[in-house]
């Protein structure tokens, strides 16, 4: 099927890379070079940090010194922002890489005694730009001028003149603006910015904070109208460049072992498709993590890097639990084939988790990823569209050809519970574990509810977990599949 050609601008804009993880991907190379970009958002959303990162990376990585006209932050806060990126503001100034001019806008009450313009601002900016031969400029936040000067006609005319001044000198600039109630910015700066507008959003729902970046306008570049989650951590801003892909990933045909030979048998004797997504669901204590651990162990034995995201148990708990069933994961950790990353699900919102997951995957490039469990993530999502976020994650994993396994807690026998319904349609293979007590003797069972692209066995088998390890027993014939599925129509809903 022919792919749609991407839109091509008549005069493609050159771009200035920001150096901010994920943002250059999302903008197709960075901000429009030699133009003014507006970054708007409410207080605390990260606009000053974004602008500062743009300047610092510009100076340090791309050889473009920068000037910051700071209208609001104190010197302390600015220095802290820069320090958080690993740089010292004074060093940067000394080496003529970054200059800051703190502009104090005082409130004048009867200040205005006749005609005036803002040439003083132009002179200060020009002076700083000349001093270090700057190529980048940040005005943060220029809307502060509105509170100090009462004649908004003059102010607006001068702002227009200022943006032209910047473009004439081919300076790539970021202007920050405070979010307005009904307009993008309080004072309508977006009217003067033709080329690029980025909006940052920071919401706290049920004590979970989520941050999102949206490209409102980017002339000359076809951009998605998607919102991208981002996080702010010790290294600055990371944007998660996950888009709703058009299912364009290749379907791989090679297979990988599940780590449990009898389970491989149930899957045409070959195991999972490489790059596929696997869901393992079951009630508490049914052995989901053990199945995940076996899978990971087999992958490490093949020399493949594995990334295990633990959202419920600490890595040391997992290592201990697995060794009690004869599974030594610690040797893979020591050989740096298995990497654990533990996070409390309530530490941040779903977008924050996705951002962290994406960042780690991009850094470590594993072949196998386990998310154990996904249950709490889904319930931590608050108002945002869970399905959309998870779709993007699974799509991303498939494009990277990473085989992924997700565990999910179901509270009762119905596998559709917990995260089941949101997640199951994204999964290629769905393995269900449950407890049962036929004839009074308790036992664990495993069956494959679905597995796309292969003829899989649908018969349940006993899951035996002992000090010797994890094995599957014989096929169970004492009850049929139909009676074990909570609701036959639920099976039809699966897909």
């Amino acid at each position, binding site marked *: 099927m022919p792919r749609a050609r991407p839109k091509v601008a008549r005069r493609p804009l050159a771009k200035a890379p920001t150096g901010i993880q994920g943002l250059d991907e999302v903008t197709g190379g960075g901000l429009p070079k030699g133009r003014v970009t507006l970054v708007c958002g409410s207080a605390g959303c990260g606009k000053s940090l974004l602008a500062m990162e743009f300047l610092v990376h510009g100076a340090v990585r791309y050889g473009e010194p920068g000037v910051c006209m700071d209208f609001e932050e104190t010197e302390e806060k600015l220095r802290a922002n820069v320090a958080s990126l690993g740089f010292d503001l004074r060093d940067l100034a000394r080496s003529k890489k970054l200059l800051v*001019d703190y502009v104090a806008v005082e409130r004048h009450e009867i*200040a205005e*005694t*006749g*005609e005036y*313009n803002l*040439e*003083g601002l132009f002179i200060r900016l020009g002076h700083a730009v000349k001093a270090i031969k700057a190529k980048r400029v940040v005005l943060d936040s220029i809307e502060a001028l509105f509170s100090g000067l009462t004649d908004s006609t003059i102010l607006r005319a001068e702002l227009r003149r200022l943006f032209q001044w910047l473009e004439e000198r081919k300076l790539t600039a970021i202007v920050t603006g405070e979010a307005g109630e009904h307009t993008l910015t309080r004072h309508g700066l977006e009217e003067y910015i033709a080329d690029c507008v980025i909006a940052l959003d920071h919401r706290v729902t049920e004590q979970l904070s989520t941050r999102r970046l949206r490209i409102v306008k980017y002339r000359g570049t076809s951009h998605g109208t998607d919102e991208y989650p981002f996080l702010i951590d010790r290294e600055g801003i990371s944007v998660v460049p996950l888009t709703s892909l058009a299912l364009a990933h290749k379907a791989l045909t090679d297979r990988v072992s599940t780590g449990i030979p009898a389970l491989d048998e149930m899957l045409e004797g070959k195991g999972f498709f490489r790059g596929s997504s696997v869901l393992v669901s079951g009630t508490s204590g049914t052995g989901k993590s053990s199945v995940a651990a076996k899978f990971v162990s087999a992958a490490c034995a093949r020399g493949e890097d594995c990334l295990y995201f633990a959202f419920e148990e600490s890595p040391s708990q997992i290592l201990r639990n697995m060794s009690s069933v004869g599974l030594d994961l610690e040797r893979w950790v020591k050989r740096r084939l298995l990497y654990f990353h533990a996070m409390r699900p309530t530490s941040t919102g779903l977008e924050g988790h996705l951002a962290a997951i994406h960042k780690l995957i991009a850094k470590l490039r594993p072949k196998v990823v386990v998310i154990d469990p996904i249950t709490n993530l889904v319930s931590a999502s608050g108002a945002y569209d869970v399905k959309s976020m998870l779709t993007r994650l699974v799509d991303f994993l498939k494009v990277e050809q990473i085989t992924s396994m997700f565990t999910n807690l179901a509270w009762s026998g119905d596998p559709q519970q917990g995260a089941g319904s949101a997640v199951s349609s994204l999964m290629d293979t769905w393995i269900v574990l449950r407890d049962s007590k036929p004839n009074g003797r308790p036992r664990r069972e495993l069956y494959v509810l679905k597995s796309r692209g292969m003829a899989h066995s649908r018969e349940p088998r006993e899951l035996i977990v002992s000090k010797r390890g994890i094995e599957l027993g014989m096929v169970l014939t004492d009850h049929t599949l139909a009676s074990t599925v909570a609701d036959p129509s639920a099976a039809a809903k699966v897909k």
Partner: protein
Amino acid sequence: MKKSSAKKRRPAKTPPGDFYRLRLYIAGQTPNSIAAIANLKKICEDNLRGKYRIEVVDLLEKPQLAKGDQIIAIPTLVRRLPPPVKKIIGNLSKTENVIVGLDLQPIP
């Protein structure tokens, strides 16, 4: 019109409360700036009876001086003495505003 650099200090001959030191920032000899200078001279002559010194700083010649007094608008008039420092902007055509803004107490 006196032009002097910022840091020269001369002992006031009269007690501080009675002597005005005013600094006018301009950016080149634009019509607005020239008007401001003229307006300022008139206001001082009418109200301060010689007990004043006007200093004009052209930021096109000395851009580095804009930072110190936090100059954004042009023209800006800064009252340096007597304290406290006061700042007003505009070409000084609205005389009332100038007098109130600078807190000029007419000297009898």
